[in-house]
């Protein structure tokens, strides 16, 4: 079933948001995505973990080409989509799907579920009327909104949060895409529903051999969902590798802090204090030189971390970290 090969190849991707201050004021750049490299195999699930403001959503939207990158390359299935426009961009959209954080905000309130799901098919001129309806039924069954007749003529507000998110998932897969970007797909949902929706997404991913980029701030759910994790901090990916390895053997100081800060249910937690780095993530308008984590890092090496950006160091074949301390320690 699993056909292998690269689905997505991203090199040195840069996406800066432009801010103008005042009428004659200069331009400022928010360096939301700065020199990001990323690979995704067909049928692979990759998680991008970061705090708010780390640029993870901008990265997702740039990959979908909702933003045009400033620099770098996005190769999708051998096709350079970095600067495509018009018809080509529309063709690219067919092969990609987007799952947003807030399902209610993502669904037009004045359209029925059927209309919502049929729309992408109409836009991409897929099938005739009957085939389209058949496809709507099929995806609704796939996201387990059954019996389909109970849901197909409803409006989004008539559904619960979990059901709405299933409609969003159904819409994202209705054009048979190869790549899905799921941006915090479950963070608005109740804890008990989260696992259900994530598992559904994982089943769909396996069945259709989809490439999924799962964007989240929640490390604990990613382990069950993705094969690999990338950790993002202030616009850069600082560590990446197989999920279990990054969680059980983190190497970047930031990753270590992040994992240390996350509690598992344990009554002894109330007697301990968590080790938290001082300060807050930097502004991306004027990020620190060198390693962007260095002002908060207890291991930072003077004259190195604050001047030069660290490159890739490999812990093993699949696990990389961008940290001078790790590189020097060997």
């Amino acid at each position: 079933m699993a056909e292998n090969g690269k689905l997505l190849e991203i090199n040195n991707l840069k996406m800066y948001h432009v801010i103008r201050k005042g009428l004659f004021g200069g331009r400022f750049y928010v360096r939301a995505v700065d020199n990001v490299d990323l690979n995704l195999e067909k049928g692979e699930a990759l998680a991008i973990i970061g705090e708010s403001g780390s640029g993870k959503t901008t990265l997702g939207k740039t990959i979908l080409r909702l933003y045009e990158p400033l620099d770098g390359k996005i190769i999708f299935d051998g096709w350079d989509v970095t600067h495509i426009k018009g018809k080509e961009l529309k063709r690219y959209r067919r092969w990609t799907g987007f799952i947003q954080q807030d399902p209610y905000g993502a669904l037009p309130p004045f359209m029925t579920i059927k209309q919502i799901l049929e729309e992408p098919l109409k836009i991409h001129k897929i099938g005739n009327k009957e085939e389209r309806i058949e496809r709507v039924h099929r995806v609704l069954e796939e996201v387990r909104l059954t019996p389909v007749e109970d849901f197909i003529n409803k409006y989004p507000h008539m559904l619960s949060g979990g059901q709405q998110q299933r409609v969003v998932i159904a819409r994202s897969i209705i054009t048979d895409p190869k790549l899905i970007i799921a941006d915090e797909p479950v963070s608005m949902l109740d804890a008990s529903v989260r696992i259900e929706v994530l598992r559904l997404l994982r089943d769909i991913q396996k069945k259709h051999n989809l490439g999924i980029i799962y964007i989240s701030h929640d490390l604990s759910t990613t382990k069950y969902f993705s094969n690999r994790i990338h950790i993002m901090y202030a616009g850069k990916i600082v560590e990446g590798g197989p999920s279990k390895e990054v969680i059980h053997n983190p190497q970047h100081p930031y990753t270590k802090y992040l994992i240390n800060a996350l509690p598992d249910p344990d009554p002894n937690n109330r007697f301990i204090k968590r080790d938290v780095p001082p300060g807050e993530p930097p502004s991306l308008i004027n990020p620190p030189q060198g390693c962007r984590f260095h002002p908060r890092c207890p291991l930072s090496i003077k004259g190195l971390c604050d001047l030069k950006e660290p490159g890739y160091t490999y812990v093993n074949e699949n696990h990389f970290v961008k940290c001078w301390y790790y590189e020097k320690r060997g």
Partner: protein
Amino acid sequence: MYLEVKNLYLYYKTLKGIVKAVDGVSFNLNKGEAMALIGESGCGKSSLSRAILRLLPRNVHRYEGVVRLNGDNIMEYDDEKFRREVRWIRISYVPQAAMNALNPVIKVGDQIAEPLIIHKGVSKNEALEKAAKLLDIVNIPVDFINRYPFELSGGMRQRVAIAMALVTDPEVVIMDEPTSALDVLTQANILNEIKDIRKKINLTIIYITHDISVSSEIADKVAVMYAGEIVEFNDADHFFKEPQHPYSKLLLYSVPTLRVDREPIYIKGSPPSLINPPTGCRFKDRCPYRFDKCEESPPKVSTNGGFAKCWLLEKR
């Protein structure tokens, strides 16, 4: 017993019917204890806190019960006395998304000092001095007293909200999801802060959250709420090792754990409507252990750390 809540009811009247948001809730806390109140959204957690604080909307249908604070039944107080003597003086509150609830045009220090001036009639200078002391307790540099909320990060604003709740030296603080909108590191930071504060002042805390992992960071006692009722009340040590009620068990196993590799489960179905909750056990439709007894209202069974409402626990 320091805080005693007994048979507390809060129903709302709506066009669709009576919403039984808090339906006969009872629990006890000792001084200095922290209780985590957990449950899915819509189970009545926030309504319970509003019932204790008497922050009621207009459409109240039924509001009764006993809330004893250090021996005084504050439910017997009239609204004026409650406002003057209890709310924000003996029991204070960190509302949900408190960091966005600060007034944008009033300086941080003035906002923290305000409850003191209004509720306790303290002079402005004295109140500001106290505000500075509290900024120090929540680890914000004291010179931030003259800043406006927009100059502070989310985590700092959340700490300001906590300082506001502590400024009157209350006996009980109710915190409603104080970290749910924050990033992981900021959340850890605030939780550290609350742990420190508990060491410095002997505070009784009711901590409302839907995040069970986070609840274990604070709780000495855990109360699990389902469809308007507390279905289990237990010592944290017992609860996290051996929850008694089937709902508590499922809730605990639905938490994705980071360090232990265990596939989390999910609870089928969704919580019942509070307008027409099922008769008998309210959890029976989702419960894997359901049997014929569940059609009747379950008994409150004492367990070695508290109680649980379930037929399974009844001694045969």
